[in-house]
């Protein structure tokens, strides 16, 4: 019945108005808050486009038809196709859309490949950036702002988002902390790839480098009481060396700390809470017992907080220096004696 009235409405006003003021023309229906359609399966889809959504977006100078190019008459008889952003967003465009490498990066990403292969669930531009209310990503209110991004990804990645929201990173992010990572800080944005891909920033062998972007930066982690040395001590450990030399089974940061569910070590639910260490190590080392928690995991022999390890390391340092000095003196004296012996002869 509604469609009938739409058609009648359009017939009454004619096409002349469309050409004169196309935006207003669309507004006749789409600016009404109750404008919606009911799908055959009884799902209600709102077709309401708040009048200020486009006006507040980066596309405030664009008109409906610039994106909805397949709408050539109003009222339109068919559902408009999904908008293809690459109509404007390509390198060399003439309409002033930003020219960046991200368009090509997206095509190579796990999302882009799936979308191009015909997976209708794979996100396209507007699924993350928003449709009518596209804003500069770091602007307040953008679906991609630091505060909102994780929630945006979580619309599809529901369980991962639930874990992340409870993690130390997620909780601090919720409080508005600008230093903690959100999804894209570890996974990348348009370059996002499956963790199985060797070039992914979250591929097992690349995880230490990815975490080190913050966790080796004293300016970022020191104020939270986290040591920036943890990455170095890992790289010096058997796990770190094996990972560096291509082992696919050696533990990396997230093997022990978790990925989305990371909790601080003093949280009883943390994988590295002392009582949980036998279980965490036990994932790879079934023989792990309570002894595995007795001592530090990230040991730096050059730091005093390594305890007895520090003093033993120092003992060997001085023993080696003194021994070598003694040997050097011995050699010099021996040569001196031989030279003098020669002169006498």
């Amino acid at each position, binding site marked *: 019945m509604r469609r009938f009235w739409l058609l009648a409405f359009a017939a009454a006003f004619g096409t002349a108005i469309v050409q004169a003021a196309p935006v207003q023309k669309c507004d006749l229906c789409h600016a009404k808050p109750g404008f919606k359609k009911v799908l055959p399966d009884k799902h209600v889809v709102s077709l309401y486009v708040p009048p200020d959504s486009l006006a507040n977006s980066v596309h405030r100078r664009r008109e409906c038809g610039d994106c909805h190019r397949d709408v050539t008459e109003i009222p339109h008889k068919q559902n408009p196709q999904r908008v293809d952003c690459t109509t404007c967003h390509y390198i060399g465009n003439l309409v002033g859309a930003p020219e960046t490498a991200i368009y090509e990066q997206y095509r190579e990403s796990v999302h882009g490949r799936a979308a191009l292969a015909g997976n209708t669930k794979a996100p396209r531009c507007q699924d993350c950036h928003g449709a009518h209310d596209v804003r500069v990503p770091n602007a307040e209110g953008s679906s991609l702002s630091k505060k909102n991004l994780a929630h945006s990804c979580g619309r599809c990645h529901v369980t991962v988002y639930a874990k992340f929201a409870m993690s130390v990173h997620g909780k601090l992010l919720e409080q508005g902390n600008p230093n903690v990572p959100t999804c894209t800080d570890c996974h990348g944005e348009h370059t996002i790839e499956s963790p199985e891909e060797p070039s992914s920033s979250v591929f097992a062998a690349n995880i230490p480098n990815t975490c080190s972007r913050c966790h080796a930066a004293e300016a970022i982690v020191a104020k939270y009481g986290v040591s920036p040395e943890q990455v170095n001590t890992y790289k010096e450990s058997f796990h770190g060396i094996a990972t560096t030399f291509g082992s696919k089974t050696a533990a990396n940061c997230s093997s022990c700390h978790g990925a989305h569910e990371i909790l601080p070590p003093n949280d009883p639910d943390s994988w590295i809470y002392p009582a949980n260490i036998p279980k965490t190590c036990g994932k790879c080392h079934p*023989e792990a017992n309570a*002894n595995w928690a007795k*001592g530090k995991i990230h040991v730096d022999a050059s730091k005093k907080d390594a305890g007895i390890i520090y003093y033993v390391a120092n003992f060997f340092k001085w*023993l080696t220096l003194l021994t*070598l000095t003694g040997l050097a003196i011995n*050699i010099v004296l021996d040569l001196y004696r*031989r030279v003098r012996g020669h002169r006498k002869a």
Partner: protein
Amino acid sequence: MPQWIQRFTLSQRIQHILLFLSLLVLALTGLSLMFHDTALGQFMIRLEGGLEARGRIHRWSAVVLIAVAIYHHFSILFAVRGQKLVRDFMLQRADLKKVIQSLKYISGKREQHPDWGKFSLFQKLQYFGVILGVATMIFTGLILWIGPAAIGLVPKWLVDMTLLVHGREGLLIFLILLFWHLYNVHLAPGNFPMNMSWITGRITADECRELYPGEYRRLLETGEIKE
């Protein structure tokens, strides 16, 4: 024809060769792991066939070293020549006095070498140094060999310390061999390119009289050599 004095038995020479070959391989494979973050270390690890092959070579060399160590202990406990060897190596109070004589000789206040017995104090210290060092390395190495299983038996920090001691002690032994032993038997004037007695097991009577006068006199008295 110079007179030759047999200084080392064939068994001792073979022990020495196996000892230094295994130590050399252990040092190269061990240090390449210790310096894995340097270009040279990475080159060495590639040369050794990768990280895992490096570990296998290291452990097989350790087996050779352990076998030599066990054989040597049997020989000094039960073999007549082995028992004599240990007696010659034993530290004596007189050695202290001879250190002062040695210093005087070096500074020119004394014409002659101090009268060491068969072995000089430095050689004695080297012998016990090798025993102490090898024993430490074998003990800590075996703990690391069983690896994670060791953490189940003792607290983790003790295994961390074992790893630390194994690495630092190994480096120390390597440096001592490099700077002292290499100098004494290879580079020191008169010895270059090397003192051959490690292969032949013998030195000339003249060398013996010069370097080990006490031993020389003893051999004269027992009639093993003639003037």
